[in-house]
């Protein structure tokens, strides 16, 4: 569907439902929770390089998912919580390029910045 201008788009094409809208129901899910749909989120994160491939993802909010979310949040300049908060879910549902953000663990869109893990460490200096 290629339209020369905005007004030429027929109204019946004005739909915004896409598969990623399903992730909205995962809001508030926390580590240790088991919720239908988390496996699909893991598949999404695998598609873009945040989780290594696996033959079958479970619906458990496990440390692997938490770590992947932290890296995702770092890459997209979000608060690094490792949780499925509003900001993270909104970002995940946006249309995007199909090329992974992380390729073979050797190319990262935010390679110069700390990952979620180290970003959450607290450092203190005594004076």
């Amino acid at each position, binding site marked *: *569907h*290629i*339209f*020369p*201008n*905005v*007004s030429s*788009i027929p*109204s019946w*094409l*004005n*739909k*915004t*439902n*896409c*598969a*990623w809208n399903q992730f909205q129901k995962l809001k508030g899910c926390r580590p240790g929770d088991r919720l239908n749909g988390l496996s699909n989120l893991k598949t999404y994160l695998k598609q*873009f390089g945040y989780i290594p491939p696996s033959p079958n993802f479970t619906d458990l909010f496990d440390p692997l998912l938490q770590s992947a979310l932290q890296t995702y949040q*770092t*890459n*997209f*300049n979000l608060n690094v919580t490792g949780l499925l908060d509003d900001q993270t879910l909104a*970002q995940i549902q*946006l*249309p*995007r*390029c*199909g*090329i992974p*953000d992380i*390729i*073979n663990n*050797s*190319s*990262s*869109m*935010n*390679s110069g*910045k700390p990952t979620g893990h180290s970003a959450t460490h607290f450092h203190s200096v005594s004076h």
Partner: protein
Amino acid sequence: YSFFPGRPTWPSHRRHLTYAFAPENPLSDEVKGVFARAFARWAAVTPLTFSPVESFRTADIRIGFYAGDHGDGEPFDGVLGTLAHAFSPPSGHFHLDGDESWVVSGDLRSAPMAAIDLESVAVHEIGHLLGLGHSSVEESIMFPTITSRTRKVDLAADDINGIQELYGGNPDGNLTPPSTPSPPSVQERDMSRNGAAPRL
């Protein structure tokens, strides 16, 4: 900015690249002009030049609109979701999701929710074709997501720094990127050089 693993680029003896459209996608000159403008944006800041050719099979960069599974192991997913993908150099494959509502021109603010600006996505994917990965700089073209009904076509400093690390700058200095709606095409500019090496 980032690069693909191994930092693949087009080899140094190939600074003029050709592109063609899949023969099964009959595209208007207006649509082809969108891609010409997108290529010109990268040509303005690099030593690279681009020109359209008829032969899809022999072109360096092959552009096609496809729906669903289109044979490269990365099927498209219908409306929104994944919009397009392009492969690292020197592959030259540039695929767009044929199920999207691609818009060529006009005020996107009044567009339906699913409208996607074609030139915005084209500029991004050409970055991949030239060797750039994704960037965390939200203003950059190579940021992975784009909001529907949004036009984002200007290269940011992050994009320019990244591509110039791979290819160097334009020997004529960074040129002003083309303005919409109807700049001369890359080919038109090339033709003004009396057969000299094509340049913007």
